[in-house]
């Protein structure tokens, strides 16, 4: 057999040492690696291992409800079912969908696209194959669980607006965005959560939002749940239910009154004492339930493309020239500053007023004849106010408008609100230059046509202030949490709006409706004293906007309202009759004092869909 030759013998030990060295290096590398993983980075891997075996299922906390002043449910959550698919690989998932397609009609291509998007976004999270499963799909999945073990039916809560009114007020909820998750901080939201995106849903997000619970389940790698770990599981907590100042019946009635108008319009009705909003409407509108499932792209495009802008909330976002409704504030400025004697016949209105070389016209071409302040308001005589404007300092009027809050926001609990506009001396100096403007600007301001701007909320609040004895209230939809102390809604006193001045303004507004010369005389209600003021906002782009503001009953005021109908003509012609219909319904004795129910127990547990019992005067 082979003999060892001398060459090999000579460097054999060296070669063995080399091999031993290589082996030693290999073992040292392995040892260093293991030491790093098991001793130095141990904590990190231990955490991975804990996360691995625990599946924390987030149990979303139900969102709070909203109820109107008579407990009618305006916003709640509806249970709906979805079929989700647990999956391990894309191929396996697609195969399941294909197999399923022979039993249930599925658009497999669309399902694939959705699956890929889902996988990209959420990774191995169970895929909602049927996000809105019908009875057929649910029963199929339940009956065929052996053939399709990866499918399961899950229940979810979806936001619902059972009354389908006031979409602009309630807003909608939508899936949380990455920015919202980070800006909220403290891990309040996780991807897939819904939160208020607009309207009250957004403003009261913190109250309405439920506190999520979690179910900790020990799972194997294939997703088989071994059991719940109760120490790590917590129950979800519902968000707070909110009480609205809204009166659903009256809201619906106001909507129906405005809905018959083809023009865009807005109206708001306030409780004069608290500022609680009894009804508010913005037309055109949309169904609030449209967004309950999150935004559907085509629907949004439709709504945004619609030239009548149904998404636009005219209650708090649209500002108009207040027109003749503003004469109440001008009168307040005259009286508090004693600019002139209100009883004096200041002008003889022949339909025109000359200022410098310009002619200003009264709305009534043939003129009103001799006018004092009271008759000028009742007749809404522009010439009288032109004359007053010549004597009225810019800042005096601006201060009065400031008192009525026209220079700011009303503080209504909606996420987007525009402030009114009040031109001051400073404002004109900045815009037009010092000394480069004249008192002539005041002529338009005095009839509410100049630089003054207001929303229906500003105007309704003005009437409320006259009605309640001079208090500027904060309009609000939400009174506070159900079964809790109502939230504070601050109100401020308007300087000088009391005593004789208050009496005068009340008499003037009442005269608008009750005096045969009044611009709203034809809309009076024989059994209900109403005080109001019409307005006709000249619109450079089209027909005049029709304004009307009122409060009632004039002797013991309860509610105040403001209505604007765009491009509709004179306030007395269009808006005032709407107000008349609303007030007549609101104060209808059989509505306020319904016959006592035969069995009073019935009213205790009224389902949301049926009409609730009325509880007397709101």
């Amino acid at each position: 057999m082979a003999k060892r030759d001398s060459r090999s013998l000579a460097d054999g030990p060296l070669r063995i040492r080399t091999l031993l060295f290589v082996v030693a290096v290999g073992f040292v590398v392995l040892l260093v690696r293991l030491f790093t993983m098991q001793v130095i980075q141990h904590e990190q891997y231990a955490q991975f291992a804990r996360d691995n075996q625990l599946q924390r299922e987030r149990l979303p906390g139900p969102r709070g409800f909203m109820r109107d002043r008579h407990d009618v449910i305006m916003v709640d959550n509806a249970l709906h079912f979805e079929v989700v698919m647990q999956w391990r690989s894309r191929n396996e998932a697609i195969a399941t969908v294909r197999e399923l397609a022979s039993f249930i009609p599925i658009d497999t291509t669309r399902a694939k696209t959705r699956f890929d998007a889902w996988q990209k976004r959420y990774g191995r999270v169970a895929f909602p194959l049927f996000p809105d499963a019908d009875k057929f799909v649910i029963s199929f999945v339940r009956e065929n669980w052996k053939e399709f073990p990866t499918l399961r039916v899950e229940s979810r809560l979806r936001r619902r607006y059972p009354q389908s009114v006031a979409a602009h007020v309630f807003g909608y909820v939508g899936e949380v965005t990455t920015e919202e998750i980070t800006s909220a901080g403290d891990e309040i939201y996780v991807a897939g959560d819904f939160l208020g995106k607009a309207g009250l849903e957004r403003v009261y997000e913190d109250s309405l939002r439920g506190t999520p619970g979690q179910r900790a389940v020990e799972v194997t790698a294939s997703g088989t749940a071994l059991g719940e770990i109760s120490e790590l599981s917590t129950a979800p907590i519902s968000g707070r239910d909110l009480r609205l100042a809204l009166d659903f019946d009256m809201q619906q009635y106001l909507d129906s009154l405005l809905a018959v108008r083809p023009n865009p319009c807005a109206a708001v009705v306030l409780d004069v004492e608290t500022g609680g909003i009894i009804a508010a409407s913005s037309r055109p509108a949309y169904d609030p339930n449209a967004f309950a499932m999150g935004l559907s792209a085509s629907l949004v495009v439709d709504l945004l493309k619609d030239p009548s802008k149904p998404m636009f909330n005219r209650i708090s976002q649209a500002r108009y020239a207040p027109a003749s409704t503003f004469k109440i504030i001008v009168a307040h400025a005259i009286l508090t500053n004693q600019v002139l004697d209100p009883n004096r016949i200041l002008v003889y209105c022949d339909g025109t007023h000359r200022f410098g070389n310009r002619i200003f016209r009264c709305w009534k071409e043939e003129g009103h004849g001799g006018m004092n302040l009271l008759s000028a308001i009742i007749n809404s005589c522009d010439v009288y106010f032109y004359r007053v404007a010549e004597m009225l300092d810019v800042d005096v009027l601006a201060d009065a408008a400031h008192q009525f809050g026209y220079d700011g926001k009303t503080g209504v609990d909606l996420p987007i609100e525009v402030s009114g506009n009040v031109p001051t001396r400073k404002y004109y100096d900045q815009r037009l230059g010092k000394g480069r403007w004249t008192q002539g600007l005041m002529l338009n301001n005095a009839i509410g046509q100049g630089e003054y701007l207001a929303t229906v909320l500003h105007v309704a609040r003005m009437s409320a202030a006259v009605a309640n004895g001079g208090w500027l209230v904060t309009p609000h939809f939400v009174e506070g949490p159900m079964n809790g102390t109502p939230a504070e809604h601050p109100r401020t006193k308007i300087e000088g709006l009391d005593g004789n001045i208050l009496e005068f303004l009340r008499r003037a507004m009442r005269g608008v409706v009750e005096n045969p010369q009044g611009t709203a005389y034809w809309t009076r209600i024989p059994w209900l004293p109403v005080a109001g003021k019409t307005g006709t906002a000249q619109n450079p782009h089209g027909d005049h906007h029709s304004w009307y503001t009122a409060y009632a009953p004039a002797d013991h005021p309860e509610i105040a309202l403001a209505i604007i109908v765009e491009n509709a003509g004179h306030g007395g012609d269009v808006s005032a009759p709407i107000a008349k219909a609303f007030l007549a319904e609101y104060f209808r004795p059989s509505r306020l004092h319904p016959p006592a129910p035969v069995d009073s127990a019935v009213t205790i547990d009224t389902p949301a869909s049926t009409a609730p019992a009325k509880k007397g005067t709101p």
Partner: protein
Amino acid sequence: MRTGRDFDWVIVLCVACLSSIGLAVVYSVSQSVGEVSAVAMHGTHFARQLIWLGAGLMVMLTAFAIPFRMFESLAFASYAVCLIMLVVVLMLPARGETQRWFIVGPLAIQPSEFTKVAVILVWARILSTHRADPNKLHTLIPVFILFIVPFLLVLKQPDLGTAMVFAGIVLPVLFWRGFRGLHILFLLSPIVSSILIIYGENVTHNPWPFGIFIVLILIVAYLRRAFLVESISLVVANVGIGLFLPALWAHLKPYQQRRVTNFLDPDSDKLGAGWQVIQSKIAIGSGGFGGKGYLEGTQKALEYLPAKHTDFIFSVLGEELGFVGAFAVLVLFAILITRALMIAQKTKSEFAATLCVGIAAYFAFQVFVNIGMTSGIAPVAGIPLPFVSYGGSSMLVSCFLVGLLLNCAVRWGEY
């Protein structure tokens, strides 16, 4: 020459310890959730491993008792038998995606495992002859042919990991027989270059490691006092790979590229190939210094570890017994390999010495790749951990090789 003094008790003790640890871990694995159905079908892995160990002891005894000269003369015959088995197994219908096993009743025999023994025997035989000189083509060509045939057959299964074991054995054996270091550099450097280029282009997007490697080759060539021609051809070969490989790479289909990058970088495919490695690393890392305790591994119990009783058994060991257990296993293997190399040096038979180096190389390569793979520093290859992993073929082959080691140790004076 056979005396009790020459019987290598240390090796026997190492093997006994490793097999016991292996049995204990296989038992632990059989306690986990997914094992219940398997038990109903075949009995526990533990019981079966116990039987394999018994069979392995008999094989070891046989390999020990028969003088190694007999194996030397049987080398080519066994090699031929293994090649036939490798061809036959390829012709059988595929089991899943691979064709690796003969199914005989309840047994699954993996011919590629036995081929490892056969190649060690044939290489030891032809490299230990008088005229053999690993630096000459008349020796290198037969060695290469004996290497490439089983390599390609196993690659066809496909089982790249096992095929690589042949390479991992042949190089140390050649080196031991006097192969010049520079030649090893010639063989290894293109492989390293290819890996560095593909890794650099597709994973780290960093070309510098390749550049540093070329400089290193130059330094080594200078230190080894290589001829100018050798140095130039070495650098040209590696730079040539650097130039042509990217072009070749671009010609591969995306799924082929992915297969390579997944092999080099399991993290790129977290749910596929990377899943095993990530879960294995979590298991080992979470074990910590002292381990979670025997039978207490959560990664194991909850089925996060794939192939946890075979190729990834070290993950369970690392999880339950911690760094202490892993360290013990490494030390046992280190002793075994060192003893094998010491026998190689002591024995007077050229064949026996080469055989022992081959066996040492076999154990070293299996241990490095297996533990490297479970701890995430070596690519995933279906290579079991000798004596510890569950599996009959691996157990019989390891026992047989240890038997040969003991054989050589006892007959160290024989030629």
